[in-house]
């Protein structure tokens, strides 16, 4: 099921939490929402789940609008809110049964679904415990289980790996990836590595507006169109190399990274590559080139560049 957000605006008092954003998420796509705190990620997600009523704009989930057929959307959506609220006084199994019944799973199937969720989310040892007795990581798993129990077409996960240990994080990421193949998934996070690892597409939101949208490669390219190389040359004078590198026609900037090892950072002019020139320069002068690697722009840098002001 596709999600289409049209000119969504949400105003709290004087503040525009979400400011006229539009985007589309296709079936089988895992979209990662990135953004600093208070950027409008959670507000947008809550509006898609039909919980928050937008100030302006419309959202379509499949053919259903949040205004016209919220009940139809609610049947097809699985939602894990940021704070992962759960009925503390209920045992895990009872809670999953309650959720499953509300989501309209038939009584014939409900036991199987609960069993499956307990296995998928790794709750086997905890299923008879009260939710208040569980650790944060297990509660998060219960949160995921309740979001997945009715096998929804659309999954909205607000910081799904918060509070999990590194092993669990990897497991949950795998799970999301697996699920994401047939479903539409939107997840938010401020862990960049996580979004990069799980999402097909990344959307960066800042101050209620979309500032970037694309695959992680797209974003890198857009932020830094210039090639940056790390060059190490042995058995030569640092200053001479520095001068010669600067003279190359494609080079814009040279930085000495490590004087003792003769390492340099070479930034090329826009849309140009200096690799050939550097290689030829070394051959001409009889220098030994021991390292020539391109430094990737890290997603962190992209993120900072787009959201820092």
């Amino acid at each position: 099921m596709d999600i289409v957000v049209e000119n969504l605006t949400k105003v709290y008092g004087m503040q525009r939490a979400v400011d006229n954003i539009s985007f589309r998420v296709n079936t089988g796509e895992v979209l990662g929402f990135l953004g600093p705190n208070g950027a409008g990620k959670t507000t947008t997600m809550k509006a898609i789940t039909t919980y928050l009523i937008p100030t302006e704009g419309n959202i379509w989930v499949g053919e259903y609008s949040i205004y016209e057929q919220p009940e139809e959307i609610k049947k097809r959506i699985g939602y894990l809110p940021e704070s992962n609220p759960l009925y503390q006084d209920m045992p895990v199994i009872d809670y999953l049964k309650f959720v499953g019944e509300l989501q309209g799973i038939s009584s014939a199937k409900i036991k199987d679904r609960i069993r499956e969720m307990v296995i998928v989310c790794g709750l086997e040892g905890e299923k008879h415990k009260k939710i208040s007795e569980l650790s944060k990581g297990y509660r998060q798993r219960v949160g995921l289980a309740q979001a997945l129990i009715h096998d929804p077409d659309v999954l909205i996960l607000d910081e799904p790996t918060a509070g999990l240990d590194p092993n669990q994080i990897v497991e949950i990421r795998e799970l999301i990836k697996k699920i994401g193949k047939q479903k539409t998934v939107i997840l938010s996070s401020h862990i960049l590595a996580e979004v990069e690892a799980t999402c097909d597409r990344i959307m960066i939101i800042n101050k209620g507006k979309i500032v970037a949208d694309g695959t992680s490669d797209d974003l890198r390219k857009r932020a830094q169109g210039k090639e940056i190389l790390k060059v190490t040359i042995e058995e030569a004078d640092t200053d001479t190399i520095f001068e010669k590198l600067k003279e190359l026609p494609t080079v814009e900037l040279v930085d000495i990274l490590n004087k003792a090892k003769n390492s340099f950072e070479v930034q090329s002019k826009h849309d140009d590559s200096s690799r050939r020139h550097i290689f030829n320069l070394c051959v001409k002068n009889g220098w030994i080139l021991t390292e020539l690697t391109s430094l990737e722009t890290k997603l962190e840098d992209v993120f900072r560049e787009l959201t820092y002001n």
Partner: protein
Amino acid sequence: MRQIWIITKRELQSFFDSLTAYIMLIAFLGFSGLFTWLYGSDIFFTKQASLQTFFGVSYWTLFFFIPALTMRQFAEENKTGTIELLLTRPVTDWQVIFGKFLATLLLIAIALVFTLPYYITVAKLGNIDHGATIMGYIGLLFISATYISIGLFASSISNNQIVGFLLALAIGILFHFVFGFLSMASSGFVSEVLYFLSLGAHFESISRGVVDSKDIIYFISIIFLSFVGTEAILQKNRT
């Protein structure tokens, strides 16, 4: 209907799991039993085969007990945020409100069923007016439903249970005393209107065995208005 019942089941389960239900049942039966049989103007004192005393005591006991039951029902969900998960399920606000309402009403009905031995005993002791007694029970159910709907409304307003409890009592007192006093203090048409708004007058006529459509309309209007208010608050929290 199915959705309402699922919510009702969970709410009832929660009453019994948290011991609230047992405490409420024991305290209610204790109070009403004490005043009906042993203390004050009890049955042996009045020497009448009637449950008037019991209805009078229950009327007041429920006034305090019901807000204690309902105070949690929305305030807790608002506080922990579970209301968000509940309302993003395929249920309407009305189904949630009605489900919670029904759970508390069922608990009160269970408590009233446990007082049926009083009825049977008194009926053995003398000539009881069966019609009046049955109407008395129905009156208690209507009064309870009214208190519950007010209690749910009060609970939905904040995420603090104590606020929910006190506000429910305050609204209850308004209907019990304030309208009554004002009615006595004023005269003519205004007095009549205020008297009509007063809760006690309507319960009294029902518990005497007089069924008047005016009383039924009165109770149902308060319940309906409380539901509308609760729904408005649930909606407001989402904007």
